[in-house]
């Protein structure tokens, strides 16, 4: 009898878990404690009329698939007491959101729109490459730079062939068209690792790995789709094109983005912890994102062309440490608000650095204590006189 009751309870728990999975799939917000008591609220959180798709707001929680898990206005974010539960994926273990609740609320307090990425790792802690090969007899390669320096690494090519073991070097393999999961075994937590890969006819390639990867230009050849990387460390002057586009926990370091623009192209959701110092052309050419990662506190300059051609960008927030601004804007037709928390009036390289944004209706918010200074400062005075720009001291 007790066995029957236990089985019934277990079955009930299973159905509750299934219900939460369905809520998540429909775009509802999951509580931290997923029990029967919280289920009604979770169901009520499913957006109505939107086909289960969570609408983008000011603060968005996004995972590596580009799915918005939860979204809030700035005011709603300030009321949060816990972060939303992530979507569970087979083979992946959720680690954390890239910002803490305290950090998010600090950003919200400072009027900052934010996309917050989810950090997952492969549950087995191996590197998984999911590739779709479109052409028969395609030679693909993986360059094992030595994640665990000189340790034996094994590559399971995912097509039933015998796995290959090697210390470091380039491995090649011939594929026919189809979907494959390639698994690389090594200790990826050790420094020095970079897997460059080449899948000439691959599409929809995704890689899951963990922790540190040293940036290399070669990784751009993974079909242009994101690695899930916790942290990128580099001092190389390299164009690390698409793979960071959905990375959850990356502070972009100088030179990481390379030059020439277009580094994030048409990526709508760019999740990283922001720009830590001046990088020329950081988001230049992004024509899709409404929200771009923040300039982090401590940065002293906003570099040239940072937001050029970011046509859908709505808001830019500069931290208190910014002391100079160069020609960061152009063709920012959707820009509506610029918040400047600088505790001294930043040197503006040219009035055109801001008026060049070509927004028809831009409001610049500055510290109230500095407002009169802006009105007479070199170049800022001309910005304030522009009929399409409103300068107000409301911070």
């Amino acid at each position, binding site marked *: 009898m007790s066995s029957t009751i236990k089985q019934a309870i277990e079955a009930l728990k299973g159905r509750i878990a299934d219900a939460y999975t369905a809520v998540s799939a429909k775009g509802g917000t999951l509580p931290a404690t997923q029990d029967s008591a919280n289920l009604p609220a979770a169901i009520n959180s499913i957006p109505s009329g939107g086909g289960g798709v969570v609408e983008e707001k000011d603060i968005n929680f996004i995972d590596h698939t580009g799915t918005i898990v939860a979204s809030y206005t700035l005011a709603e974010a300030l009321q949060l007491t816990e972060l939303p539960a992530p979507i569970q994926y087979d083979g992946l273990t959720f680690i954390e959101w890239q910002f803490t609740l305290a950090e998010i609320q600090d950003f919200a307090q400072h009027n900052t729109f934010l996309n917050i990425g989810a950090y997952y790792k492969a549950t087995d802690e191996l590197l998984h490459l999911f590739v779709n090969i479109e052409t028969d007899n395609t030679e693909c390669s993986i360059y094992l730079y030595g994640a665990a320096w000189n340790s034996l690494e094994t590559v399971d090519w995912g097509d039933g062939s015998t796995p290959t073991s090697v210390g470091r070097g380039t491995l090649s393999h011939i594929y026919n068209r189809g979907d494959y999961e390639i698994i690389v075994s090594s200790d990826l937590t050790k420094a020095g690792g970079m897997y460059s890969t080449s899948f000439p006819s691959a599409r929809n390639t995704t890689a899951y790995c963990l922790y540190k990867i040293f940036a290399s230009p070669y990784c751009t050849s993974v079909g242009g789709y994101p690695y899930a990387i916790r942290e990128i460390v580099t001092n190389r002057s390299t164009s690390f094109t698409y793979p960071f586009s959905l990375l959850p926990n990356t502070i972009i370091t100088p030179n990481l983005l390379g030059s020439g623009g*277009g580094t994030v192209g048409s990526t709508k959701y760019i999740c990283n912890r922001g720009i830590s110092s001046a990088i020329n052309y950081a988001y230049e050419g992004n024509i899709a994102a409404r929200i771009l990662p923040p300039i982090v506190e401590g940065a002293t300059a906003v570099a*040239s062309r940072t937001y050029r051609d970011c046509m859908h960008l709505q808001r830019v927030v500069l931290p208190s440490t910014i002391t100079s601004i*160069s*020609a960061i804007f152009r063709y920012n037709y959707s820009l509506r608000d610029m918040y400047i928390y600088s505790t001294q009036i930043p*040197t*503006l*390289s*040219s*009035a*055109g*650095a801001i008026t060049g944004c070509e927004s028809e209706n831009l409001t610049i918010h500055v510290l109230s204590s500095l407002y009169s200074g802006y009105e*007479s400062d*070199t*170049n800022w*005075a*001309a910005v304030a*006189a*522009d*009929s399409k720009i409103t300068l107000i001291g409301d911070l």
Partner: protein
Amino acid sequence: MIVQEQVEIGTKTFLHTYSDAAVKIEQVETGRIYDDAMDVIPCQYSYVETEQPIEPEQPEPDEN
């Protein structure tokens, strides 16, 4: 050579200062560096040319 000319923005008149050699200019009294400077009139500042070139505008990709 430093060039100065008056320009109107909205209802106000400013003194526009720039280098005809396309170099950045230094505001002597503050040491601040500008590509070009718009100051309210009467202007409290004087300017000299630096040796730093102003980053030239690059053509749009579809203009290549």
